């Protein structure tokens, strides 16, 4: 339904970036090259130029460029400048740059290039560029060194049992975290660069032989189609590549935990790690993944099944409770048991607003509280609690602005919504639509809403995989890991549709039976 509104990319609209190679050319003259670089990086005070020459052979002149703060000064001093300055074995007769690369510089990662674009980008990324007199080529030496955040447990995805590491903002650290979980040459990691100005590095990870090639191809195509100036978080990318972009449901998964990403790769999904953000993406993403948590696989299967059923129940509760309540007390009074009808009627005497208006207002108040809670500084939390609980809850009932049952309903709705933080956005929208329907024609309207929601969910696809994967084909093998989780010894297969060829994941028999 929502695909329809997707606009086709109009030609002629693209994000522009200056191509330096059109205006500037590297020459053999060091002096010219230095001027050229300074012109490219003009009015950038962090751009450092350092010239030096060999102690014995004054003809061996060099210059390094780097950006202050992004490099490891020790490496530059000890492994680049010092060897070149004091070396006596530089062969001037042949190619100076060859000799320096082979015998002088101590660095594990050096690249030789004559493309000015590449040089500029490498410097901007934190590499050091070494220019030499008489050479049109440049050595790009990796001497990156900046502070990164320590590896810590993600705030949003805490577990009681399970690994505590979470991704950081550094792509390389994230890749090592992933690599340490999957020690196999089948783990493939492909770089891509997205963002014309931000030049954000993105890494597509998958396990060769398990991941579905079609999905991989489609993902690559969609990533290549992105034409944007900058990427600050993987959220932007996921919105740009997701199916049904106007749907409130996610069709691209996200996680901050390497163990989750590794597990998803083992199921045949494909991961995308984006530089500068701790949130990795996984595709395809199906509906049931909203209700799965990594801990479910580590703890006892009875308990994890109960937790999952609870989450599903919470989802149903949070989207339908206000609607059903309003429908019952305004359209279907005969369906309420008599004693309850009496107490509801008692609670609602002299309440000024109709039930539906009260429900809308309270739901909005709850969302305000939630939103304030997320955005405000943590040390103001107590004030929010007092305002929320005492003033808006108790006092509103006492002042007869609203009735106590309505406060209970909205509180229950809100609490069960918080059980599924990842579904938050979709839930708010659906809940209000259901409430609106119910306020027009009661439970009948609510059922319309439910039918519409199911229609939408069953229509959705994520990279060609049906969104309601496990509900579309009621195959016991595929239902093992949905709203319940069976013991590991019975989970022998990877999900259908996602891992097509290599489906057996587990052949262990379990302990003594």
């Amino acid at each position, binding site marked *: 339904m929502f695909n329809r509104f997707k606009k086709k990319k109009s030609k002629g609209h693209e994000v522009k970036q200056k191509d330096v190679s059109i205006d500037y050319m590297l020459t053999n003259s060091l002096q010219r090259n230095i001027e050229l670089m300074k012109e490219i990086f003009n009015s950038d005070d962090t751009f450092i130029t350092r010239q030096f020459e060999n102690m014995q052979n004054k003809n061996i002149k060099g210059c390094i460029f780097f950006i202050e703060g992004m490099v490891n000064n020790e490496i530059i001093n000890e492994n680049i400048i010092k060897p070149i300055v004091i070396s006596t074995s530089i062969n001037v007769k042949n190619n100076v740059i060859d000799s320096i690369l082979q015998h002088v510089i101590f660095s594990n990662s050096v690249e030789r290039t004559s493309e000015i674009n590449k040089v500029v980008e490498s410097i901007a990324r934190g590499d050091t560029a070494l220019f030499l007199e008489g050479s049109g080529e440049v050595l790009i030496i990796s001497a990156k060194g900046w502070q990164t955040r320590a590896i810590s447990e993600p705030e949003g995805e805490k577990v009681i049992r399970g690994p505590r590491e979470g991704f950081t903002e550094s792509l390389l650290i994230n890749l090592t975290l992933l690599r340490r979980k999957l020690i196999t040459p089948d783990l493939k990691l492909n770089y891509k660069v997205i963002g014309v100005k931000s030049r954000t590095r993105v890494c597509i990870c998958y396990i060769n032989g398990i991941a579905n090639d079609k999905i991989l191809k489609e993902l690559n195509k969609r990533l290549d189609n992105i034409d944007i100036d900058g990427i600050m978080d993987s959220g932007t990318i996921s919105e740009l590549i997701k199916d049904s972009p106007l749907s409130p449901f996610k069709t691209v998964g996200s996680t901050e935990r390497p163990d989750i990403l590794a597990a998803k790769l083992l199921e045949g999904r494909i991961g995308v790690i984006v530089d500068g953000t701790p949130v990795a993406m996984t595709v395809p993403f199906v509906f049931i993944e909203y209700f799965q948590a990594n801990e479910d696989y580590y703890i006892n299967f009875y308990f994890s099944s109960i937790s999952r059923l609870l989450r599903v129940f919470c989802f149903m509760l949070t989207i339908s409770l206000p609607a059903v309540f309003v429908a019952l007390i305004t359209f279907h009074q005969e369906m*309420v048991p*008599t004693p309850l009808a009496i107490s509801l009627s008692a609670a609602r005497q002299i309440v000024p607003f109709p039930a539906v208006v009260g429900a809308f207002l309270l739901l909005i108040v709850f969302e305000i509280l939630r939103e304030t809670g997320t955005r405000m500084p943590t040390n103001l939390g107590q004030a929010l609690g007092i305002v929320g609980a005492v003033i808006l809850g108790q006092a509103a009932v*006492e002042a007869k602005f609203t009735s106590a049952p309505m406060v209970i309903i909205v509180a229950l709705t809100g609490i069960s919504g918080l059980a599924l933080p990842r579904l938050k956005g979709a839930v708010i929208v659906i809940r209000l639509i259901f409430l609106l329907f119910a306020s027009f024609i009661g439970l009948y309207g609510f059922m319309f809403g439910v039918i519409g929601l199911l229609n939408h969910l069953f229509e959705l696809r994520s990279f060609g995989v049906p969104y309601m994967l496990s509900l579309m084909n009621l195959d016991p093998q595929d239902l093992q890991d949905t709203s319940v989780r069976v013991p590991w010894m019975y989970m022998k297969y990877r999900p259908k549709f996602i891992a097509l060829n290599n489906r057996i994941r587990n052949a262990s028999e379990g302990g003594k039976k």
Partner: protein
Amino acid sequence: MKHVRRMLFSLILISNMLLCGCWNYHDIEKYSLVLGFAIDRNEQENSYLLTAEVLDFEMSGKEAKPTSKLIESKGNSVFDAIRNMLKLTEKRLYWGHADTVIFSQDIAKEGIIPVLDLIFRDAEMREEMHVVISKEKTAKELLEQQTMISTLRSTEIDRILNSQGSLAKAPVVEAYELINELEGEGISAALPAMGIATNAGKKTVELMGTALFKSDKLIGFIDSEETKYFLFVINKVNRGLLIQNESPENQMNKITLEIFKTKTKTKPEYYDGKVVMDIDIKTEVAIAEMETSMDYIKDVNRSKLKKDAEASLKSSVKNIIKKIQDNYDTDIFGFGMLVSANMPSLWDSIGPDWDHLFKKLDVNVNVDISIRNSALVSKSIRKESIRKEN
């Protein structure tokens, strides 16, 4: 094609929304809930007097306490009387929660079908409403009496009827069952009767047996004890008590048996041109209370008690059937219906004559009582002297 489909879809959606019967947003507090109502008839004016017990709230501080009020209204028909209530109240009355309706004897004697029609026809009123016949002069008197525990008169009547499961002293009939019985062939209706009694200084409402109908007209009452045996015949006893004298000679010492499970199977038989009803009552009881110190663990005593209990239950059941046959001649047991279900061809020939046949119908009653246990004790409390004797 896509446009047509979309148009069709929205057409179905919109017409569904507009054509459904739910287009009536009404906040619950804008209604007055009717808890129960009584219908009387004014012969002179040829009109109905409807008395409804309506939920009301007593505001004490911030809390609203539920109480009730009576609203009376006259009309040429029941529905007219209901609508006439709008002359008196600001709020619309809501009848979906009314769970008791009381008919006066006058109405019952004239026939209850005319007043039942609205309950059956109206969308708001429930068909599982309890129907009660007032033993007093009017029906509204019952609603005017005080309550014992709850504050709502009709609700209390409803709960009294619901708890008959462990007493078995009144038939509990819901409106739809009554309508089925009125429409059915070979069965007559029997409804619970209620009257005013004074209890602990309060004038209140009490169950007083059963009102008997022939066709849809009231013809008499039987008392609570008789009702129990009537319920045995129609297999409507759930729990209840059987009081047994220790022996015919000793009427003073009584043994109380509690019924745990009972099942009555009634089968019509046809011998020599005569219909005979075979009634098989299988009951499981336990000794619940004893005024004697007889040792009923002993087989001899126990089988004697069993025989006595069987004999007295059998004679009570026979008596009530006889009484109904002789005095009222109305088939409240539904024997005729059983004949028509089991022997349809026979029923075709004798059906028209059933009223006449019922009066002289032979009934075989077989009772099988099994005593399951004697509650928590195996021995009664005994004086020392008796113990020594044994």
